[in-house]
Each structure stands twice: as C-alpha cells, then as structure tokens.
C-alpha cells in the first residue's frame, strides 16, 4: 500500500501504527504522518524506528567515513549492487535530525512522550513515538 494514501483503511480504526526503517524512503513524510494520524484511533500510538543523527562528533566522523567508504563497497562485493547501498547511505544522510523529526510528528497533531525519541547506539538509530490525543 501507499503510506501516503491508505485508502483501504478507515478513519480512526487502528490502535498502533509502526514503521521500521521505512519512513526515510517515503517521498513526502509529512503526508505519511498525516495519513497515520487519520487512521489511528484517539489514544492510538505511532511508533517509528529510523536511522538518525549520531550525537558524538568524533563517533560521527568515524561513522560517516564507514558509511560512505565501506558500505557501498561491501554491497558491490557481496551483492553486486553498489547503487542500492549508495542510495542507503545517502537516504540516511538526508533524513531529518531527531528534534526536526519530533517537530514533524508534533505538527501532524501527535503528542510526544518525554522528549519524543530514544537514541539507540549513540544516535545511529532512534525510536520516535507519538500518541494521538483523545477527543
């Protein structure tokens, strides 16, 4: 299905909407977030696991060199597909930071728990959560 147009799902009919390592590939994330808001029941939860920005500057340097240097090369050697892995690291780079994505989730109408996200492995990935307000 197209996450930006979930025409087969009725309004306010879903308890939990999860997306893992998918949302960075969406063309229009704001539209997808609003669609998630539409299909969730009041009180329903939107949970998103996605690659994000690393907190530590030194670790970030090493991580970027590994991402852009080694990963496409490994893709080429193991899977014979350098282009996909180049796209992968570029899409990670283009994805908004934790605070920006949290603001996008709030703009779609969700309430966020605490600071809105939880960093994994120093920010390589982050879990964002949003709760649709009750009526």
């Amino acid at each position, binding site marked *: 299905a197209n996450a930006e147009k979930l025409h087969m799902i009725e309004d306010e009919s879903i308890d939990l909407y999860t997306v893992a390592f998918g949302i960075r590939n969406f063309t229009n994330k704001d539209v997808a977030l609003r669609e998630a808001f539409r299909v969730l*029941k009041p009180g329903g939860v939107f949970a998103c696991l996605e690659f994000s920005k690393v907190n530590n500057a030194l670790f970030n340097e090493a991580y970027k060199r590994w991402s852009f240097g080694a990963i496409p090369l490994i893709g080429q050697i193991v899977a014979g597909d350098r282009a996909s892995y180049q796209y992968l690291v570029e899409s990670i780079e283009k994805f908004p930071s934790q605070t920006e994505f949290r603001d996008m989730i709030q703009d779609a109408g969700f*309430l966020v*728990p*605490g600071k809105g996200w939880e960093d994994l492995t120093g920010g390589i990935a982050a879990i964002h959560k949003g709760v649709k307000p009750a009526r």
Partner: protein
Amino acid sequence: MAAPTTSIRLTRTALPTASRALARPFPPALRAYHSYEHDPTPPYPPTETAILSDALTHLPTHGFTHESLRLGARDAGYLDVSTQLFPKGAFELVRYHLVRERLDLKERVQFPDNGGKSLGMGSKIRTLVLERLRANEPVVHRLQEALALMSLASNIPPSIAELARLSDEMWFLAGDTSVDTSWYTKRASLSSVYAATEVFMTQDKSAGFAETEQFLDRRLADLRTIGGAVGSVSQWVGYTGWSAINVLRSKGMRM
C-alpha cells in the same frame, strides 16, 4: 498563464510554515524557583496528568504496576496502547504519587496562629513528617513496590531529587530561614530520617502506626544527640588547636 500559477504555488507553500509555527504550543514555563503568586508548574503535560490521576485510584488494588497505568488510561478515555506516553512505565506512577503528595502537604498541614510562631521547629517538623506519612496510608501495603522501582539504577537520580524536594518543602513549611551551611545539613538529615521512617512504615502493623511515630521520635532524638556531639567536638578541637598554636608562638616559633 505561467505567472498566476507560480504565484498561487508560492502562497500555498508559505502558509503551511506560518500556521505550523502558530499551531505548536509554547512549552509551559519551567520555573526552578518558588513563587508565592503562581502555582507550581505541573510535573506532566495535561494528557499524562489525566491518565496518571485516574491511575492513582487503582493503586490500592493493582499497586505501582503497568496494570494500574493501563486501567487509568482506559478511565481517562484512552486506549491501552496509550501507556506508551510513559517511557519509564510504572515509575512515572511512583513519581506522580510523590509529587502529588508533596504539593498536597501545604493543604494538609495548617499551623495555628500565623505559621505556628509558638511551636518549636522540632515539633513542626515532626507534624509535617507524620502528616506526609499518613498520606501514604491508602497505599502503604503497595509501598514496597514503589520503593523497589525507585531503587532501580536509572530511577535513582530522579528519586533522590524528589526526596530532596520533599525535605526542602517540609523545612519551608516549618518556617526555616537559615542562610548558611545549616540549610544543607538540615535538609540532608531530614531526608535520611524521612527515608528511614518510610521504610519502617511499610512493615508496621501496629494500630494507627504508633510504632512508626515512636521510630520517628527516636530518629529525631538521634539527630539532636549527634548535632550536640558534633558541636561539642568541634568546639574542643578549635580550642585545643588555637591553644597549641599560641603556646608555640610564645616559645618563639613563627606561625
């Protein structure tokens, strides 16, 4: 034909960002100091407060567990999955209970004749501690769950912060106006006394918690004894030290 469509497209993209900036609510003012004119800032946003206050009604039956949180979410008109609003789970329930009881202390204890001018500091503190402990009575059989949650490694800093705030609140309501290091020592000693008495209360089976009151009296008496002993020792050390220095100076040593 090209010019009108580009101008329409510009306004359509400009409007969403303006309305986005207006729609996002300002975060509530987090005031770190006490104000007489304004109420204290609530610890949680309105939605979480609604769920937590409904969850408190389930504490006697289900205790400080995720189950109480889930039932509270249902009572407040949310879904079971809405408990995802609480990243620390049942500990948020403990923290809300602690903050609520601390803020209620002002209403529960009203000293007679303008802030209890005639009562001694010790008796006022005793009244405040006992009143705060009585506020635990509806959930005393579940309090050990709360203490266990507070002792988890990631929960220790916020728990100690809450204990410090409670101790500060009790001294403030007793009318403490000290501005030297005794400000810190008073709060530290009251924190330890309160924590010990609360742990004792969880296993107290006497009528009207009479044994807890006696335990508290013994701890407060200990504080007075230790305070007196430390004062005496420091006085002795000071006198002896200065005497020794003066004797050496009188013998000709340059000091």
